[in-house]
């Protein structure tokens, strides 16, 4: 085995217990309600939540062709 042998992909991706500990500490230190605005786009959320809202006028349009 040589020192420049590539690290196994499995090892590269593994989340270590140290990483998990950092995640836990960070989560305890933040106010999530303040942080979420950084990743939740209100327009996207509105689009998702409004998917099944139908304008009542639209219900009357006949599909005729």
């Amino acid at each position, binding site marked *: 085995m040589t020192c420049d042998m590539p690290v196994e992909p499995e090892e590269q991706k593994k989340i270590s217990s140290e*990483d998990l500990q950092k995640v836990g500490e960070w989560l*305890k230190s933040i106010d999530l309600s303040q942080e979420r605005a950084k990743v*939740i786009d209100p327009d*996207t959320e509105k689009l*998702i939540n409004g*998917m*099944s809202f139908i304008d009542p006028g639209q219900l009357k349009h*006949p*599909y*005729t062709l």
Partner: protein
Amino acid sequence: MCQYRIVDYSIDNLCQIISDENRISISSLKQKLHIVYLESYFNELNAKTIVVEKDYIDKDYSEDYAAYYARSFKPYKRTCVRLHFFSRRFDKSSFEPILTNNSEIELTNDYVGFIVVKPLPQTILGRTCLRTYPNVGARFFNFIRPYKVNLYGLELSVDSIAYQEQDSIVAACASSAIWSAFQATGLLFQHSIPSPVEITKAATIHFPYANRHFPNKGLNSEQMAHAIRNVGLDPFLITAVNYDIIKATTYAYQRAKIPMVLGFMLSNFVKGIDIGRHAVTITGYRMGVNRSGFVGQDFYLKSSKIEKLYCHDDQVGPFARMEFSRADNRLTTSWMDESKYIGNIVAKPEIIIIPLYHKIRIPFEIILNIVYRIDGLFKLIKTNVAFNNGLNINEIEWDIFLNSNNDFKSEIRLSGELNEADKLVVLTNGLPKYIWRAIGSIDDEKIEFIFDATDIEQGEIFIRLVPYSQNLTLLMKTIANNINIDDIESIQLAKIFRALRS
């Protein structure tokens, strides 16, 4: 008298047969978009031979005939012609020994399907069951079913979903689209499949002033909803104004083998004029390889890879392509403009109507919203916590779809990604008839959330995690154990983290 003919397939021969049977000029037949479409479709299916079965009694046409044509002054024929297509060349001398079981030739694998030709002056395509496009690797037709055919004692079968052209009398485009959708839901949810005339009657019975039952000039969404309720299903309407919503919805429900009706405005984009509204049945989709973010966000859904829809368009043909290639949320169509050019008529989607089993109560948007928030949380963590390795949890791709309990467990049973103990726990866990599945994948790491699709929205819809990846499972548990649940705005997300706390 001989009741059948065998003809070498060519589009000219096909037109000649229809012309002979229906007394339509070949030139007017060739103007029909269906014929243009079928020519290219049969080339893809490699059709070689047509068997013409005369005096065929078709159930759906018989219903239409009894409801309308039987009472016309002009006599219309009661029987149809059924055309069978084969991808093998043969003639009468080789076919008759096959019929009498005196031949080694086996036609089962060469059967491409059939078209019932109605004895009407213009709208001739009755029940049509043709094989789907080949190369199913990237194309998905999730609810095709076997249609058994008995041709003079010869048992044949074609995997398809039935199609027919509207006759503009007893049915308009919407009735035909619903009829095709019922071909799948009838088998899946065990309901009777009404004929187009019965669909139109059920749709219009409560709307005496909307338009005449017959001749019928079209249905609106409310009328389509009535037709769906009439077979015991619940119509679920989605606003289809955004590409990614159409893709995500199509994928989510079609994975559970549920078809849908797409309503749109047709426009000539060169001239900038609207032509009118039209409805089709979405019968399949084609996945590409390039991933793109949902509505331009870095939120990746597998469904966003859909490039094309395949639709039963009663004015074009079965499995007609509609492509998501335009930047303005319009789909391409195979419609011709007035100069017979295909490519200028585009579809601006408006609504999707999904005929659902009444117990499928949790809509897709609830699950999509939960997953959007989980994905956002992963991104926050990745941005704020310096990991020692390269697992890019902010790049996760989500595969969200409805599934039956049975299909889910069959898949888990055959999965090589779960260890025996976890597999047994998941398999022996009691589950509702339908579940929502949200599978997050990044490289070879995978995690799955399953939700009860039959519960009520304020209920505990989260069922469990499927721990394909130890890394992502541990990460979820770490989040659950350390997050301040009172800070979580989404009630359902808070319930997930409470359930995961150990």
